[in-house]
């Protein structure tokens, strides 16, 4: 709650400062997020502020919410760190950008802590609406406009379906409160048709939000068309928030109905990993490849939802979200330094990067290896924890996931091959701005820390 307030106040301050000043916006936004991170850390690891953790049975900040807030705020802080370079060409709207990103983050925090379906809905909307604007923030770019419109239409559509599902669940259980819904469902042997349809519709709505197959088709275009840092935000914070909410809803409200929802989600997970990974093989554009990669990771993350009830499912989700977010942000940080000046977003832009900028090449290589889940990098432990949690329930799905991680090597390695093994060099000059250098170094340091001591995060909640 403290973190939420800090972020909210920072967002408003940034909005007003942005009217007259440009220079102080990034430091202000960074300061706000770091303060919020500190507050979250104090709540999670220290004695805690001890107030405002619960509000009118609408939300409750427990270790689960604090830990996920930490992941989302950390990811946002890194993105703001990159933004000095990433937003350098923006004109008057710079203040709005930081304000909207922070408002969106507030929505994510609500999604980590809701105990009532109303708050879930509000959280999703607070998260999404700023993003509809941000996706189209390059007003003169047709691809950006297309992305924004697609994102908005699909988002609105998904919210509609989600709301419809909530209504039916409310109709069947007479409550919006997660705990009461769980009590009403009991052990799930007397579920009405209305409840079943309601749960299915909520699965569909949330699948849209986390871009799981077959509800993913908006993602590649939106990821590719949006400004780079906004894409990074969508791929990390939005995804983390979506999955934490998905997990929370099903773990608190619907555990009794598991026999009903488990198989559909397992099918969605299987489809998501397989389709996204095989499609990613054929991409030539970095951002599009990252879009499919992010969809495939949604497939793995669904394993955490399937593992609800097994020990370590929430830990695995937390660890995976963190490693995935760090690696993705590092990758985007390198991408904006490499591809933005030359305007070339294909893999060829990375040719010979290891000679031009060894640091950037090393960061991107390690991020790719981590995303591919190659031991001993942090991404491997993320996959390992997820797979272990879900193994007992769905052995076949784990085997499929394992095969998929092998497929994913192929496209992640294309970047590494371009950077290190290609004997031709891309034409463009590569710059290494200060903000990018510090943000990716910090990201890399955190990945290294998670690699050496996975226990520092796994076991926190």
């Amino acid at each position, binding site marked *: 709650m403290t973190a939420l307030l800090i972020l909210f106040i920072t967002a408003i301050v940034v909005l007003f400062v942005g009217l007259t000043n440009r220079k102080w916006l990034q430091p202000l936004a960074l300061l706000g997020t770091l303060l919020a991170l500190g507050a979250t850390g104090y709540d999670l690891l220290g004695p805690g502020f001890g107030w405002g953790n619960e509000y009118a049975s609408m939300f409750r900040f427990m270790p689960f919410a604090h830990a996920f807030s930490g992941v989302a705020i950390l990811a946002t802080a890194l993105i703001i760190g990159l933004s000095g370079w990433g937003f350098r060409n923006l004109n008057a709207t710079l203040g709005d950008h930081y304000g909207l990103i922070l408002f969106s983050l507030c929505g994510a925090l609500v999604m980590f802590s809701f105990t009532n379906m109303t708050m879930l809905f509000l959280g999703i909307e607070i998260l999404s609406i700023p993003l509809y604007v941000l996706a189209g923030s390059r007003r003169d770019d047709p691809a950006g406009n297309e992305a924004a419109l697609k994102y908005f239409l699909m988002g609105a559509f998904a919210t509609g379906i989600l709301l419809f599902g909530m209504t039916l669940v409310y109709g069947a259980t007479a409550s919006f409160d997660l705990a009461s819904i769980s009590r009403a469902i009991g052990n799930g042997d007397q579920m009405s048709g209305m409840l079943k349809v309601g749960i299915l519709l909520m699965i569909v709505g949330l699948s849209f939000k986390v871009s799981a197959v077959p509800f993913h088709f908006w993602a590649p275009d939106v990821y590719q068309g949006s400004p780079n840092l906004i894409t990074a935000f969508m791929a990390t914070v939005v995804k983390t928030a979506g999955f934490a909410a998905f997990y929370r809803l099903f773990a608190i409200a619907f555990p009794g109905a598991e026999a009903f929802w488990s198989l559909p989600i397992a099918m969605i997970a299987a489809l998501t990993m397989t389709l996204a990974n095989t499609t990613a093989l054929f991409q030539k554009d970095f951002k599009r490849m990252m879009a499919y990669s992010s969809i495939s990771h949604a497939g793995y993350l669904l394993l955490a939802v399937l593992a609800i009830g097994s020990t370590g499912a929430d830990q695995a989700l937390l660890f995976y979200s963190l490693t995935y977010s760090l690696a993705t942000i590092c990758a985007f940080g390198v991408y904006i330094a490499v591809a933005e000046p030359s305007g070339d977003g294909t893999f060829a832009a990375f040719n010979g990067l290891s000679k031009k900028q060894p640091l950037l090449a090393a960061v991107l290589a390690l991020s790719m290896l981590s995303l591919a889940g190659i031991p001993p990098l942090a991404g491997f432990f993320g996959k390992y924890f997820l797979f*272990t949690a879900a193994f007992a329930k769905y052995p076949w799905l784990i085997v499929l996931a394992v095969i998929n991680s092998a497929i994913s090597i192929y496209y992640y390695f294309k970047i590494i091959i371009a950077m290190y093994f290609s004997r031709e060099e891309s034409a463009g000059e590569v710059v290494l701005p200060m903000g990018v250098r510090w943000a990716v170094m910090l990201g890399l340091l955190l990945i290294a820390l998670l690699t050496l001591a996975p226990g520092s995060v796994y*076991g926190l909640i």
Partner: protein
Amino acid sequence: MSLIFILIPFIASAILLLLRPGGSRSIALFAALANLAATAYCLCCDYSQGMNCTYSVPWVASAGISFSLGMDGITLIMLVLTNLLTPLIIVSSWGRRFDNEPRYYGLLLLMLGALNGVFLAQDGLLFYVFYELALIPIYFICAIWGGQDRIRVTLKFFIYTFVGSLFMLVALLWVYLQTPGNHSFAWADLVAVQLSPAAANWVLLGFFLAFAVKMPVFPLHTWQPDTYVTSPTGGTMLLSGIMLKMGAYGMIRWMIPLAPEAMHILNPIFISLAVFGIIYASIIAVKQSDIKRLVAYSSIAHVGLIAAGILAWNKAGVQGGIIQMLNHGINVVGLFFIVDLLERRLGTRSLADMGGIAKSAPKFAALFMIIVLGSLAVPLTNGFPGEFLLLNGIWNYNFWLGVLAGLTIIFGAVYMLRAYGLVVFGETKTETANFEDVNSREFLVLGIIAGLVLVLGFFPQSVLGLTEESVERILRAVQL
């Protein structure tokens, strides 16, 4: 103590990769020699009471994963192999100019640390992590400094081995989830699990896939000849001399102990594949005209014999497998060094373009002969006791398989002596007339290898004695 084997190479590698100092070759050699000294120290420890020099700290405590290392006689021989060959590999790369030398030697040391980790790991997940970690540096070494078509070949190699290991991970996870309580990856806990017959089959198969790809065992060998031929010589030496031993070692330490319940069902298939691979690879080797490819196929044959001996799971077979791992490592590194010498001086690897080198380079011819004799397993060379024990072990398992595996000696004589004859004797060609004899650095490497071939041939008991108790202990603990 055992932590040193991992820390020295990793720290040196980090220095080389991050700081890019000058004189990287010397730093790498110094680190490798420090490791060799540590190995020499460990030769004097006592291994009769089980694991010695253990080191254990919790890694992910809540998931029962610990960073635990330990040594017994079997591990010790593998450490000798790794830490003896790495300095030789570094010295043999000495003459070559690489672009970005710190990176090359940094990756090489990273590989050294990971290999030592594989052999020392006493925790299932730690073993897996090191096993995979070893793959990353060798992939980069082969793909950056490799020859023609290197990107395609090395990616095939990477995906092949990575997929194989993923099956091992699934198998390992399955056993882990059967451990009582909060689950544990400790070796003793994993071995104590009683698997159901169906599960045991799958677990054994998962491990076998991983190790059979790595060694490689027929029919999972198709990545190997291309990769060996394409890699830079240092990479080929690492792959053939040390890395494939990870597979054989994994069979002894992890595969068979974890799922002995399924051995009587699946082992006849595994061991037949291994023996078939010996004959198959030998026949192909006889027909090769490219000398590097010939050595690559001969390696498949030799490793097939090691695998078959280990799978026979009796004292002669396992002990033979262990000392043969050491001997094969020494011989194959020598052979690839000779191939590299020939290629650099003649600009070709084709046997048809060679001949008559004995006249212009007598020292080279003599050292080459000793190493060839070692790989032929002639008595009083290092290959003999190993192959003798291996064949004895296979023979005890099944008479006819033993006879078939014995063909390896005949085939080996055919293809190695043919290659030797074509290179060293025969008519002198214009290219080979001015063949320069070995210089002092090359003489040092080949001399050490030839010396080891003879010393280990005269005194096989020095190695056998080190492993005997450990082998007996593991055979007692894991009875089929």
